[in-house]
Every structure is written in structure tokens, then in C-alpha cells.
């Protein structure tokens, strides 16, 4: 068992999916154990693969494992070349990080789901879809070529559609599922075009490493490459919910909460980050504008999501905005070419964000309520959940020594070094806002007096199936950040800290930037404290602030009206164009064109029939005229 067998990792959940799809309804417990066993096995299999990678590594020089099978191949006429598409798997440190995150979170979430989804009428289908998601996501991560990556990419999008729309009887869920799929699909248009562009001028292969090697030899023209990577980035925009395609992610919260934890926090939405990280050498070779665009998009997303998080009242939506916030941070890191920072943030983010969602799920499961305005004071009744949620919140805000802190400071340090000071300052200000709205979330949900007694009465701590995953994730969210230290890495068998495992050009050790750490902690802590005062007790202070800045708060509550603008565009432009073309088709093409030509024939015949007067002399004259005409013609011809 080594890197060559890495294909088993997605294959096992895929097999489970097929079995569940066909025999699921006939299995005991609808086959949930099969799905969990499959993802558990996959999780375990990550370790031998990792061990193999470390075994073969020489210091910090990693030898990637690659294995491929031919999927289709044909000769190109007259070109003497072959068009090949492979199914291939590629393992390197970035892959390993993703594999670990995906399998672990998926395992946690599925265990959690046993309790959370209990009694649902489509319990079996839930685990079937989850297995398909796991298989697709792992395929995406392991793919060695862009086409297989695209396949996994679309498949996870489809699973996301299925799972957001899991409770499809709810109109809002059906609409959210549709919105998510279509919005990400818009990005995928770009992704597909980008893939084709890279192939078109490239080395007649879809293999990612070969394309990168080709690009490094200067195979692509710079402007062409810039266009291609920006098209690729469009795909990442859609999938990772970056501005302006972020609108689907908050709505995606219509899905079951574990799904949100897995797909819309920890794994699928970071696929865009993964894609950009994977293709980062191309971004660097392209015109600098490419990375600048990544950075700016990330920055915009950070700011708008953080501010929108201030106004949302649904606890899941607040977490969704925080996810957007985090994803934006990752793109900011990528925009500065910092794969290490981005992947580290991705790694720890998976833990604390899954933790937050599962914690929120625990609350929702217990109280059947997810509106902050109707919760409050739950800490007393749900101590474990509240404690874990607190860890998640603090990690998200980035309080030392929780995992979020280390990752966030990496990003900040990189931006301060690499980018304009404005970027750094904007990020710092976003930290403050993050502190505000995360504090608000926690305070309003768990502390002070309950706002709805009835809801409060329902609340209770959940069973082990829910609390154990919470505890595990809580632990990881606490200590996950320590992987940055070389000592920790060495203790775990790595060559050093995270920076010596995941890097773009050369490994680098951990550096503690005291000034960054102090500034960020002060700002984040300030956010927490300020938030505490704003929303403590009955949140009178917050209410007065809101009233004072009424236009702004309305703007935020309405999410900058972006959804409305899109809705308007869809209703009036897209559907309008559809109606126009349908009208054009029926009236112009069909009625005027097709029926019209038929009518011309009919009318011509109708008019021509009056030549048949029925009067003998007319006919006789016509005959004579015809004969005369012919005779004259012949006479002229003969004479």
C-alpha cells in the first residue's frame, strides 16, 4: 500500500455509492454503516499513502506519486499524434493535506449525521449521496489531469445540488439548490474554456504537471496564459463562492446542517482554493495582473462577507458568511503566491468551520430553531456544544493559541511583505469585523437570557454521536495550528513544520512575526470586546447603533442588494431574452417564415385561379396567343 494505490481512496466510497444506490433500501439501517465504513477506510488509507510519500522524500524534496490509465485515445488524422485522455492520480503534499481534511471531516460528519438525520424519510438516500460526494471530492483532489479534475468538480457540484435540495419539498431548498448549481455552473463555463485553452496551445495533454512543465519552459505566450488562468479562476470563483458569484453559498444553508459543514465549509467550497493552489505556477508565469485579480477578488469577498455577517440573524448564515470570509482570506494568500499560508488556513479552517457548523447543527437539532433572535442562554443547557462552539468562534476570530490564529497570521505576514500596505490594512480591519460578528453569534446564541422561553425549554444536550465528533473537532481546532512548528512536524514524522511540507518553490521554516501577531490580536480582541458590549444582555447598545446607522444596516441586511440585482437581471434580462426568442421563434420564424411561405403559395394560387374565367372565348384567345407566340419564336429562330 503506497501512493500507487491512492486511487483506492476515492474508489471505496464510489463502490459504496453504487451498492447503496442499488441495494440501499434493502440493507439493514438503510446502509449508513456501509457509507461510514467506506469513508472510514478511505481515511485510514490516507496514512499509508502519506507514509509512502514521506519515505520517498529526500529532506524536503518530495517525489510525487502518479498513476494513470488510458480512458480514451485516438489518432489525429494526418497529424501523427494521439489524442489522449487519462484517468490518473497524483499524490503530493497538497493532495495529502486535502485528502486528510476531506476524509476526516467526512467521517466526522457522517457519524454525526447518524443522529442528526435519524428518522428522516430519505435517510438512506442521504448516505448514498454523501458517499457519492466523498468519492467525487476525493477524485477531484487526486486527479492528475484537468479533465478528471473537471469531472470531480462537476460531480461535487451535482452532489451539492442534491444535498442542498435534500428537503426538496421546501420551495426555498429547491430554489437554493438550483441557484447553487447554476451559479457555480457559470464559473464552470470559464473553467472548461480555460482547460481547453491550456490544451490547445499546450503539449497535447491534460496532465497538470506536464502543462506546468510546458509553461515553465515558456511554451505559452504570456497574454494567452493570463487569459487561460483567469478563465480557470472563474471556475474557482464560482465554486469557492467569491465575489461576484458568492450569492449561492448563504442560500445553500437550506441543506441539512451536516451537509453545510462538510460541503459548504470544509471541503467542496475550498476546491477553488485547491485549484488555484494546484495551478499556482501557471498564475505566476502569467501576467502579474492574474494574481492581482485573485488578490482583489479575495479582498472584496473578505470585506463584503464580514460586513454582511454583521446583519444576518440566521446562525447558519452567519457561519456561511464567515466561510466566505475565510475563503477570501485564502485567495488573498494565493494572490500573494503563498501556497503555504493558503493551505494552512484551508487545513485549520476545515476543523473550526466544521466544528462551528456541527455545533450550530447541535443547537438546531435540539431546539429546532436557527434564528438568533429566538435563541440565547443555551450555554446552560448545552455545555459541551457551547464550549466547543466557543473554541470554534475563537479559532475563527484568530485568538492565540487556537489554530486559526497561526493560519491567519501566516496570511497577514505574507500580505504585509508581499503586497501594498493598503491590502494589509484592509485585512486588519476585516479582523476587527470578524471579531464583532463572531462574538455576536456566540453571545446571542449561548449567553444571557433566553429570548424565547419555549425554544429554550426544548433545548437539551445531544447524545454521544453528536458530541463526540464535536469534541474531536474541537480538539483539532485547538491544536491544529501547532503544525506550523517544526518540532511538532518532526514529532509527527514530517521533515518539519507545515511550511516544509506544503510549499511552492522552496521549503521554509516557521517564523513568528511578533508585530503582526500583536496587531492582529489587538484588533481581533478589540472586536470581541466591542462585540461583547454591543450585544450583551438585550443588545440595547447594538440596537441603538443600528438605528443610528440605519441606511448602512439596511444595506447590510439586504446583502448589498446583490441578490436583488442578480434576480432582476435573471428576471428581466435572461428570462426576458428567453421570452423574446421564444416569441421570435413562434411569430417570426414559424408564423412569418414557415407559415408565411406556405401562405404565399396559397395566396398565389388563390389569385391565379381567377385566370380560369370559365369563358370559352378567353380560353380560345389564350390558346391562340400561345400558338402565335410559339410560331413567332420559331419564325425568328428559323429566319
Amino acid at each position, binding site marked *: 500500500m503506497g501512493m500507487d494505490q491512492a486511487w483506492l481512496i476515492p474508489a471505496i466510497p464510489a463502490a459504496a455509492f453504487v451498492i447503496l444506490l442499488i441495494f440501499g433500501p434493502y440493507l439493514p439501517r438503510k446502509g449508513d454503516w456501509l457509507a461510514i465504513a467506506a469513508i472510514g477506510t478511505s481515511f485510514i488509507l490516507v496514512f499509508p499513502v502519506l507514509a509512502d510519500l514521506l519515505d520517498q522524500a529526500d529532506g524536503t524534496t518530495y517525489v510525487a506519486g502518479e498513476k494513470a490509465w488510458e480512458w480514451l485515445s485516438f489518432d489525429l488524422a494526418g497529424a501523427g499524434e494521439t489524442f489522449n485522455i487519462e484517468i490518473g492520480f497524483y499524490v503530493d503534499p497538497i493532495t495529502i493535506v486535502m485528502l486528510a481534511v476531506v476524509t476526516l471531516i467526512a467521517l466526522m460528519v457522517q457519524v454525526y449525521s447518524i443522529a442528526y438525520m435519524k428518522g428522516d424519510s430519505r435517510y438512506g438516500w442521504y448516505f448514498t449521496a454523501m458517499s457519492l460526494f466523498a468519492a467525487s471530492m476525493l477524485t477531484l483532489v487526486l486527479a492528475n489531469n484537468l479533465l478528471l479534475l473537471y469531472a470531480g468538480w462537476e460531480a461535487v457540484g451535482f452532489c451539492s445540488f442534491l444535498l442542498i435540495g435534500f428537503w426538496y419539498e421546501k420551495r426555498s431548498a429547491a430554489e437554493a439548490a438550483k441557484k447553487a448549481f447554476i451559479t457555480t455552473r457559470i464559473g464552470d463555463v470559464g473553467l472548461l474554456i480555460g482547460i481547453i485553452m491550456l490544451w490547445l496551445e499546450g503539449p497535447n495533454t491534460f496532465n497538470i504537471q506536464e502543462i506546468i512543465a510546458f509553461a515553465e519552459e515558456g511554451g505559452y505566450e504570456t497574454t494567452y496564459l493570463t487569459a487561460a488562468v483567469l478563465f480557470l479562476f472563474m471556475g474557482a470563483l464560482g465554486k469557492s463562492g467569491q465575489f461576484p458569484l458568492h450569492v449561492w453559498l448563504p442560500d445553500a444553508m437550506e441543506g441539512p446542517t451536516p451537509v453545510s459543514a462538510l460541503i459548504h465549509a470544509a471541503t467542496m467550497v475550498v476546491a477553488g482554493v485547491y485549484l488555484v493552489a494546484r495551478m499556482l505556477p501557471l498564475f505566476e508565469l502569467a501576467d502579474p495582473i492574474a494574481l492581482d485579480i485573485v488578490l482583489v477578488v479575495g479582498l472584496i469577498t473578505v470585506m463584503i462577507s464580514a460586513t454582511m455577517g454583521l446583519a444576518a440573524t440566521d446562525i447558519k448564515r452567519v457561519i456561511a458568511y464567515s466561510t466566505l470570509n475565510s475563503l477570501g482570506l485564502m485567495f488573498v494568500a494565493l494572490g500573494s503566491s503563498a501556497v503555504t499560508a493558503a493551505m494552512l488556513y484551508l487545513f485549520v479552517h476545515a476543523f473550526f468551520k466544521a466544528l462551528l457548523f456541527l455545533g450550530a447543527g447541535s443547537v438546531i437539532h435540539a431546539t429546532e430553531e436557527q434564528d438568533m433572535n429566538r435563541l440565547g442562554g443555551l450555554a446552560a443547557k448545552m455545555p459541551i456544544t457551547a464550549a466547543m462552539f466557543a473554541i470554534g468562534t475563537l479559532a475563527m476570530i484568530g485568538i492565540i493559541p487556537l489554530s486559526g490564529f497561526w493560519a491567519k497570521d501566516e496570511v497577514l505576514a505574507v500580505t504585509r511583505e508581499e503586497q501594498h500596505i493598503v491590502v494589509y490594512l484592509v485585512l486588519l480591519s476585516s479582523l476587527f469585523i470578524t471579531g464583532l460578528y463572531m462574538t455576536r453569534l456566540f453571545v446571542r446564541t449561548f449567553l444571557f437570557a433566553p429570548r424565547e422561553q419555549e425554544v429554550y425549554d426544548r433545548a437539551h444536550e445531544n447524545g454521544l454521536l453528536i458530541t463526540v465528533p464535536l469534541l474531536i473537532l474541537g480538539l483539532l481546532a485547538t491544536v491544529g495550528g501547532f503544525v506550523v512548528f517544526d518540532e511538532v512536524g518532526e514529532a509527527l514524522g514530517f521533515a518539519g513544520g507545515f511550511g516544509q511540507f506544503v510549499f511552492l518553490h522552496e521549503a521554509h521554516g516557521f517564523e513568528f512575526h511578533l508585530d503582526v501577531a500583536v496587531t492582529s490580536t489587538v484588533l481581533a480582541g478589540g472586536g470581541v470586546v466591542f462585540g461583547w458590549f454591543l450585544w450583551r444582555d438585550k443588545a440595547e447598545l447594538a440596537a441603538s447603533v443600528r438605528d443610528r446607522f440605519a441606511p448602512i444596516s439596511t444595506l447590510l441586511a439586504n446583502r448589498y442588494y446583490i441578490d436583488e440585482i442578480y434576480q432582476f437581471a435573471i428576471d428581466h434580462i435572461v428570462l426576458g431574452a428567453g421570452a423574446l426568442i421564444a416569441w421570435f421563434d413562434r411569430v417570426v420564424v414559424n408564423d412569418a417564415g414557415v407559415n408565411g411561405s406556405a401562405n404565399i403559395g396559397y395566396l398565389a394560387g388563390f389569385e391565379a*385561379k*381567377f385566370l*380560369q*374565367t*370559365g*369563358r*370559352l*372565348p*378567353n380560353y*380560345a*384567345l389564350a390558346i*391562340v396567343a400561345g400558338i402565335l407566340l410559339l410560331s413567332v419564336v420559331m419564325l425568328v429562330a428559323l429566319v
Partner: protein
Amino acid sequence: MIPIDNFLVLSAILFSLGMYGVLARRNAVLILMSVELMLQAVVINFVAFAVYLDPETFTGIIFGIFVIVIAAAEVGLALAIILRLFRNRQISNVDEADLLKW
């Protein structure tokens, strides 16, 4: 003697007059009479060709005889039809018998 052209031109004149009659007249009987003129013109042509150009087989003369025979039959039938038309619809002008149109 008389050149053949004379007869042919005479025939042409008769035929043209008959044609004028057929086209210009309204009354069925008059049209019939014009048709007879045209037939006569044709027969003159036939006979002229027969006796001038082809005296050995003189097919034209035989044809002329047949034309006269058929003309007789035709007149008989045509007049019967005209009579019928007049009796049924009180019409003796052909341009009034225009039911067979459109």
C-alpha cells in the same frame, strides 16, 4: 398556271378570318360557322399540297374527304349541344356559359 402560293395564301386568309370569328363572336352558332371556315381553309391547304407536291399518293385529298366527314359529324354534335344549352339555360352566347370556373 396558278402557283401553289396563291392557294396557300387564300387558305391563310380564310383561316385568319375564321380565327377572328371564333375569337370575336359570342353566339355559339356563329362561332361554329367560323370553325367551319377554318376547316375549309385547312382542306384547301391539304388539297393544294396533294395535287401540286404529292400527286402520286394524294393523301391530302383523302384527308380532305375525312375532314369534311368529320366536320359534318362535328356540326351535328355541336348543334345538339347548343340546342341543349339553350333549352336548359336559355343561353346561346358562349361567354354566358361560365359555370366551370375557379
